[in-house]
Structure formats: structure tokens, C-alpha cells
């Protein structure tokens, strides 16, 4: 038996692992996917060259990195004064207070919530 057979075996293993991984990721839901669901619809509102900043209220810091990755190639900064809209993510128990606070001074363009977080995209009125 020659090395060619070993290459074919390796290729089969490669295809099988890729296929199993593909099946798994279609079923698996992790925290990033949950956030992705929460932010769904936002990519049609935020222009690719928009200047967006993010505010996290009582949430994990990682959420900024995840949101940035999910909304890429839109650039979302956390520390900037040069922005035209603000994406706010807060824990769900703050939903009403955040809405009241933001709707006074800012225009809420888009909002969403799930069982863990509420999401607002706002801009200056």
C-alpha cells in the first residue's frame, strides 16, 4: 500500500471533520449567536461607513467585541467623540429606564430585546 492511500485517508478525515463541524455549528447556539439574534436587523440600518459608538450598561465587556465582530465591517468604537449614533446594550431589567432616559434627548432609531439584554440604537434629535 502506497502513500497515496494515506493521503486519501487524510483527505477523507478532513472532509468528515469539516462536515461534522458544519452540522454542529448549525445546531449550536452560543452567546455570540444570542447577541447576533438580538442585533438582527441592525445591519440594514447602520451604514457601512457610519460612525457608531457603543455603551454597555451592566453587561459583560466582551459584548463590545462580539457586537463589533457581528456588525463588521461597520466600525464600532467604544471611546470616541466622533460618532453619529450610539448603540446601547443594557440588561433587560433596565429596559424601561433606559428607554425613558434616551427618548428625552435622543431619537431612538431601532430597539430590540431578548430574555437577557435590551438594545437601542439612538442618534441626536
Amino acid at each position, binding site marked *: *500500500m*502506497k*502513500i*497515496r*492511500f*494515506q*493521503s486519501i*485517508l*487524510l483527505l477523507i*478525515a*478532513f472532509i*468528515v*471533520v*469539516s462536515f*461534522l*463541524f*458544519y452540522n*454542529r*455549528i448549525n445546531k*449550536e447556539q*452560543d452567546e*455570540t*449567536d444570542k447577541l447576533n439574534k438580538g442585533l438582527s436587523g441592525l445591519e440594514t440600518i447602520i451604514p*457601512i*461607513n457610519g460612525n457608531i459608538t457603543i455603551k454597555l450598561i451592566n453587561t459583560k465587556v466582551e459584548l463590545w*467585541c*462580539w457586537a*463589533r*465582530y457581528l456588525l*463588521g*465591517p461597520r*466600525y464600532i*468604537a*467604544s*471611546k470616541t467623540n466622533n460618532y453619529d449614533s450610539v448603540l446601547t446594550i443594557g440588561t433587560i431589567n433596565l429596559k424601561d429606564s433606559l428607554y425613558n432616559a434616551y427618548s428625552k434627548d435622543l431619537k431612538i432609531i431601532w430597539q430590540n430585546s431578548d430574555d437577557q439584554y435590551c438594545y437601542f440604537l439612538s442618534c441626536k434629535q
Partner: protein
Amino acid sequence: MDKTSRLILSISVFLGIVSCIYFICLFFKLPQLLLFAFTILAFFTTYLYIYKENNTFNPITQFTLLHYFLFIICIFILAQNCYNLSLKHGQWDAWAIWNYHAKFLQDSVNWKKLFQSTECDHPDYPLFLPATIAFFSNLLPKNLLLLFPFILSLLFTFLIPYLIYSQLVIKNKFIALLIFYLFCQDVFYITRGVSQYADTPLAFFFLAAFVCMEYADKNKKYIALAALSIGICIWTKNEGSILAFIFILFYANKFFNQRTIFYSIGGFLIPIIALLLFKTACTSSNDMIAAQNIHSFKRLFVKEGSLMIYDSFVKNMNEHFYYLKVGFFIYLILCIFQKRMPDKKIFLLISCTLAYSILYLFSPYGLDWHLETSQNRLMHQLMPAWVYVISLKFCRNKDNVNFYI
């Protein structure tokens, strides 16, 4: 070089060239048609120049059923580990840096926005991985977008042990199989491999340069191929430039003599063009370099820092690279018994390991944190080349040490 190794090299080098071409086309805003024309040209060039060889060396290697059976078990272990240790979005740097950068590069209009970002984005990181992902993601349907970065990382995780195996199996089947098994069962190697980071591709191209240099005296095209591999190392990660510098220094007589200089330039050309465009016109400076000043050199003489690096190195070695440590000591003992100096390649690798260690002394971050988060990855980049060079020593005397597996 045998056919299997040439196939492995042509696949990987093709990916490297495609990423360079993709970036150059983005940079000069060249039309898609030209990009595809260049890609097809790259495909045929790698196929005809690297894979096809007229005066080919085809060792007739027959394997026993036991060898075949053990090889299948190794593959099974490798496949199972790869599947179990993979994550949907990859590990932290995968989605925070590499796949995130790829999303920018997919957009031929707004890709330069990547370089505006300054917050934990590392826009100065070279683009082999993001550009390759971006190129193929543009061709794939949306439901396969998460799959491709995984496939790419899986490919390099498979190719590293298989390239070493295909190189060793013609010399000593037992050693080849043993080394292949060590990779397949190595949870640390596979975790890093399928993490979707750029460390494993860098490790592969560095290893590929060593493999090519083994054949440089027989065929000058391997000089070009080694140069190309080293060029892609620089195009993969910033650390790649340190490895490339040391590698070129050690092999300067082979790269830059009258007979080979055009081959070397030919090999370096495409990745260096891409890198120069990237470094001069796009990116901000590297955080490590930007943090240096006139007093930085004083850190070289701070004993605590050096001790901390050494302790961390030993800890990582014992935890993740134990078989490399054992192999290295056996190598040294063999050298003593044979009354021979260690190979030049060993000194090259020691220099790379030392250079990586010294780098930490210039870290602008907390040394503890920096060592904890990255030293094992740097060691992972060098590990395949170390394993290859050490195992070559054990394979030299084919007839003496063949266990007929």
C-alpha cells in the same frame, strides 16, 4: 522531493499567493476579473512549477498492514481531537482580530476602515489569514461563511504533521509514524491548530522553509520556494519577520549567491510587495515598536524579567511540549556520542527561540500577563520546525534503525 510533500507545499503556497494577490488587487482597486485571472495564473504556476516535476524522485515505499492500521488510528485520533477541540467562532483572537479583519477585507470599497480602528483591533497585523478568508468568503454562499475559517485552520493543522510524516517516511517509517502520532494526540497543538489563529499557518510556512532548504542543493526551485515560504511567514504575523530575518541570515550564502539570487528574489517578490504596500500605506505602527524609547535597552539587563521569562518558558515546555524536550535531550546525547556538532538548523532554531524570549523584555505590557497570553503560542510557532529538525537526526541512519513497521 517526493510527490506528497510537493502537493502539500503547492496547496499552501497557492493560498499564500492568493492572499497577497487579493490584497494587491484591493489596494490598487483592480477589477474582479483581473483578480480571478491572477488567481488562475497562480494556480497553474504552483501546479506546474511546484507539484509537477519531470526529474522526480518517487520512492517506492511499501507499507505493511500494521503500519497502515496504526496510521488509520492516528488519523482517527487527529480527526476526533480536531472536532472536539474546535469552537464555532474560534477562540478569542479569531473573532476579535483575524475573522474580524477578514470582514473588512471582504468589502472592496470600505476595506480601509480597518486601519482607522485603534481600540484593541491590531490593524498592524499582517493579512495572510484575513485576506485568504476574505477572498474565499466572497465566493461562498452565506451559510458557509463560518465554516471557511475553520476549514483553513483545519487544513494547516493536518498539513503540518503530514508534511513532516511524508518527509520522514521515505527515510524511516517507524520514526515517521511515531512523530505523526505525537502530533495527533497533542491536545495543545490541536487546540491551537483549530483555534482559527494565525500561529499555525505561520508554523507551517516556517517548517516549509526548512523542508525546502533540504532540497535546495538538488534543485534551485526549492530556493525560490523557501524564499516564498519565508516571505509568507512575514505576511502571516509580525513575529514572522523575526523568524525570516534569522532564517535568511543563516542561509544567506544559499539565498544570495550568484547562481540563486534570482530564484530568491522571485520567491520573496510577491509577499514582500504585499507587505510593503500594507506597512507603508495602510497600517499604523506596531504597539510593541511604538512603545520603545532610548531607555528600553536598559530592560535587557533587568535580572527579574529574564528569570520570569525563563521560568515561564520551562513551565510551558513541561506542560505543552514535553516530547520536544525529550527529543532535544536525546538529540544532544546523540551528538555527544557521535562527537558531532549539532546541525546548523538547531542553532537557527535556538536563535529564534532566544529572539522570541528577548522580545518579552521590551514588552510595554505587564510581563506576567504578556507571557501568560502569548509565550505558548510563540513556542507553538516554532514547535513543528523543531520536531522536524530533531527527527531528521534520528532518520539519518535508515538501515540501522528501521523497525519494519
